[in-house]
């Protein structure tokens, strides 16, 4: 699903985001990327979303070389990916339903198809009764679940999450992680960037550890 081959990212100001990183992620795998602030977690996610390009090395996502991808191809690449942000990135002037429907509208699905898929996504994040509300009417945890529903509504092959539990209390964080596991069980590859080691350790999935842009660990969490 994902292949990093000696991928490096250097910024014009001299800062090195990633040092020749190499690893693979299988289709349907659940993976954590952890490390302190500045370790390179966000850089890794930005590379996968084609928000940035590797300076050197080869980065393949579903067979597509992200170093060679054209600007016109990027939107179509992103349609295969779901993204969950720490700050949710919800549109507060749209209802929960319309926030979740956004990727489907971009895909040009018909109204009944959109309704069906949004309902299904809402069911999966246990927010079926909140469709008509606005994000501002919801708690932080519920907003994060709306963000997750929006990320999975178009059934992406890969789900990326950047510190998805950063603003949540431990109980809510565990609940959100449970949602990710449910999604993963349906076949979606999940890659979560997080520095919540305690939570990660309880989940016993593969964990990549980054430090100053270098991969210093690759193994099952908790071991």
């Amino acid at each position: 699903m994902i292949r990093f081959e000696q991928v490096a990212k250097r910024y014009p100001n001299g800062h090195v985001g990633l040092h020749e990183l190499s690893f693979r992620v299988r289709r349907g795998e659940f993976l954590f990327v952890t490390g302190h602030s500045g370790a390179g977690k966000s850089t890794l996610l930005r590379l996968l979303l084609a928000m940035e390009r590797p300076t050197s090395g080869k980065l393949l996502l579903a067979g597509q070389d992200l170093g060679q991808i054209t600007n016109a191809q990027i939107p179509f690449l992103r349609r295969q990916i779901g993204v969950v942000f720490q700050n949710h990135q919800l549109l507060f002037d749209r209802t929960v339903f319309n926030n979740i429907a956004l990727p489907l509208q971009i895909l040009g699905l018909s109204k009944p198809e959109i309704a069906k898929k949004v309902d299904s996504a809402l069911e999966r994040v246990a927010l079926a009764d909140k469709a008509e509300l606005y994000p501002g009417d919801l708690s932080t945890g519920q907003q994060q679940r709306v963000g997750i529903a929006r990320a999975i509504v178009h059934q992406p092959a890969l789900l990326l999450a950047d510190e998805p539990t950063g603003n949540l209390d431990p109980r809510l964080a565990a609940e959100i992680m449970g949602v990710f596991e449910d999604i993963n069980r349906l076949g979606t590859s999940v890659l979560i960037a997080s520095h919540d080691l305690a939570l990660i350790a309880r989940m016993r999935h593969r964990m990549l550890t980054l430090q100053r842009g270098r991969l210093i660990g690759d193994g099952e969490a908790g071991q």
Partner: protein
Amino acid sequence: MSATRSPKVADRVAPKGSEPQPQRPRKRRNDDDDGPDFSSLLRAWIESHRASWTDSLRRLGKQPIGSFFTCLVMAVALSLPMGLSLLLKNVERLGGSWQRAAQISLYLDLDAGEREGQALVTQIKGLSGVAQAEFVSREQALGEFQQQSGLGEALKELPENPLPGVVVVTPLEIDKAALESLRQQLAELPKVQQAQLDLVWVERLAAILKLGDRFVFGLTLLLVSALLLVIGNTIRLHIENRRIEIEVIKLVGGTDSYVRRPFLYMGALYGFGAGIFAWGILAFGLDWLNDAVTGLSGLYGSDFALGGVPVADGLSLLLGAVLLGYIGAWIAVWRHLRELAPR
């Protein structure tokens, strides 16, 4: 909530601000999936544009006062050159009627009498390029001169009438070269001592109209630039207000054209509103001026009146305004879209 949405809820699915776009055919997940067919792509494309229009309309409707004043500013900028252009057309129309009255005066030999004069008129009427010819006898000429000059008594003291008979020729068209050619042709006729063509005032009027045309053209360029700036700035503000939305749209797979579309339609709608207002301003303004113009022209014994805004000109104004709005928005989005990369 059940997985099957009620029809009422399903109707609400086209949400505010939704702008679907056709989906590029994706890799098939299984052999039974043939991907989107042409009709579904077309439907999605139509739905995408419809949604963009309604979203743009809704956003303009949410700020009625702001939208109104933007349209009004644009309308004033549009109506100034268009109004001047219409006024010039009216002056040209007025000038044209004067031009048709441009005449060549043929001063005859003093010994040419009424009979020769009338014969000459008959001959001249048969020439091409002549609309009318009229003979003024020496006696008529003297009478008119006495009346107009106020030298009636003095002229009576003259031993004989010094004024020649005159044939006044009205040409068919006012073309300087053609008129000069006609003048030369008339000058060679028998009994014609001098053929006089006075086109100075026609040339002055033409020069003034040419100056007016240039002024209108320059003003149009200036105001079109101002219009593009107004619409560009307005669209830039809309883009700024929707920055997060645009970033999210790009992150979930929206293309640049998908992001751009509602702003382009918004620019076109601003242009449409401005075009309608400008048409109204011009129609009202010309009607308002017309009372004064007919009063003035009446004093000169003319029935001249300003024409209104011809439908073709009004439609051109509307189309031009829509295009300007669209182009202004396109430039603004093109300039700012690069800054809207997801962060």
